[in-house]
């Protein structure tokens, strides 16, 4: 029943009659006004189809062609979840190189967490719940501005709420669970993934947020930029890691970085904007509705001043 209801909610036009939708929506048979159903979203634009149409007119330049090809490839190939480097994808030497800074920062973060736990054993449960929150956040579907769906990295909100150092440890644990429960990423590439998603992203987000707050920029703007830039820089880091491991035979590292960056940028720039908007809304809701419960979090201490 739940699945039927979901299907109906997502694709109201796919059903024959509004009443049928309503029956799916509520077991009690409450009929929704047809007006609501008329407001269903327009059909999604298909890049490949658009490319075909443009091609018939004969006005597509090489630049547009290349962009369309890359967009179509990326739209088809780049996965919905945040970009993990898969198990076995990095040569052992590069896997070790990225693991070294990750291990160092992880140990630093872990020692901080151990100290916090010694002082306040209750913090263990809160940190565990924060880790679970980050995992669930990264598994939610987010509507992207391109019309497709993707998943937030969650690093921006996590770093703003919990700080960057705990996020290194929590991020590493979340990445292990993503490998174990969702088959995303892997153990040989854990160091590289921790570096991009649990170090670069959170530190950039936290730095941007704090920097803008010092400059007295309004909280929503600071949160948006922190989340969007944290997301984008995560993908820049992933592109750098892949480009360093696999430089282009002709163009070298630079060409390879442009290649990987272009593939990710097509989906990740819209996703970063979406995640920025989502984070602003979520942060505002948290500050408004859950400020009493979450008053201990550093980001919410001075939220009244925004």
């Amino acid at each position: 029943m739940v699945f039927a209801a979901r299907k109906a909610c997502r694709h109201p036009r796919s059903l024959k009659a509004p009443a049928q939708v309503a029956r799916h929506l509520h077991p009690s048979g409450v009929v929704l006004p047809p007006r609501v159903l008329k407001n269903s979203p327009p059909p999604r634009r298909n890049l490949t189809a658009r490319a075909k149409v443009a091609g018939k007119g004969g006005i597509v330049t090489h630049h547009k062609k290349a962009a369309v090809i890359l967009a179509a490839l990326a739209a088809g190939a780049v996965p919905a979840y945040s970009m993990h480097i898969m198990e076995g994808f990095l040569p052992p030497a590069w896997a070790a190189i990225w693991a070294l800074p990750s291990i160092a920062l992880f140990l630093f973060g872990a020692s901080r967490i151990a100290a916090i736990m010694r002082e306040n054993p209750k913090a263990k449960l809160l940190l565990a719940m924060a880790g679970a929150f980050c995992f669930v956040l990264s598994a939610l579907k987010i509507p992207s501005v391109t019309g497709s769906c993707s998943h937030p990295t969650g690093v921006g909100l996590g770093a703003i709420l919990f700080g960057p150092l705990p996020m290194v440890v929590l991020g590493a644990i979340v990445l292990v669970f993503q490998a174990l429960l969702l088959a995303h990423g892997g153990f040989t590439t854990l160091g590289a993934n921790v570096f991009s998603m649990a170090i670069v992203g959170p530190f950039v987000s936290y730095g941007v947020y704090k920097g803008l707050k010092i400059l007295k920029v309004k909280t929503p703007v600071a949160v948006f930029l922190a989340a969007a830039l944290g997301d984008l820089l995560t993908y820049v880091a992933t592109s750098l890691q892949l480009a360093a491991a696999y430089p282009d035979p002709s163009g070298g590292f630079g060409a390879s970085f442009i290649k990987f960056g272009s593939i990710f940028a097509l989906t990740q720039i819209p996703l970063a904007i979406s995640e920025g908007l989502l984070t602003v809304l979520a942060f505002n809701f948290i500050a408004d509705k859950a400020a009493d419960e979450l008053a201990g979090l550093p980001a919410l201490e001075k939220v009244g001043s925004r």
Partner: protein
Amino acid sequence: MFAVDRVALASPGARFHPAEKALPALAGIGLSLAAPRPAAALGLFLFFLAGGLALSRAGLRVYLEILAAPAAFIVAGALGLAVGLASEAPVDARALHLGAIVLYASKEGYARALLLGLRALAASGALLALMLSTPANDLFRLARSLGVPAFLVELASLTYRYIALLAETAERIRTAQECRLGYQNARRGRRSLALLVAASARIAWIRSEAAWDALRSRGYEGSLAVRGRGAPFKPARALAYTSVLGTVAAILFLGAPA
């Protein structure tokens, strides 16, 4: 509950000690990285697929559904290797001129992407064989016995439990929002999702407080006592699995066509 978790808990392979599966899985990841030719990597993947299915009894459809996401990541990564950017395209390559630079696809690029993609697929297959037959609690037990600091294992173990709790809560909120047309368009969807995130954060906080009270009232002193399955480690079994894998890999590495 996640598909991998569900399969692992019900799998017949779960009754074996986790180290007996972790050892061949790690060896399998190493061998996948060393596969000299695409056919050898593909052969290894098929071996891990068969091994994973035999250990977990997951069913091919479920297995392929779980594999879909990693496969998409692999395709995305391999795509960058299949094409090249340069000021001049190689002679035998298909080229697309973008002003001063050329986007080209050469046979070498395809071959490189194919080999790397299949290696990664085989390594993912090895990891999946372990995951689908080993519940997370067994892996925590293994981590503890390997000397990972207790507080980290405890933190991971608590996070694992809370993931299930929060994921279920988020799922219920999402279903309720969908049934109220909360995701009818992108704008509404973004607002609904933000509410969901905020509600999840609040619930996470409240539940962590409640869990603390509940644990303290049961005499919690810093570590959760969880009973594992307790199967003894049988080195002979681990060695047997690894030997079979080694033999298959040797045959594939020496005999697979180029």
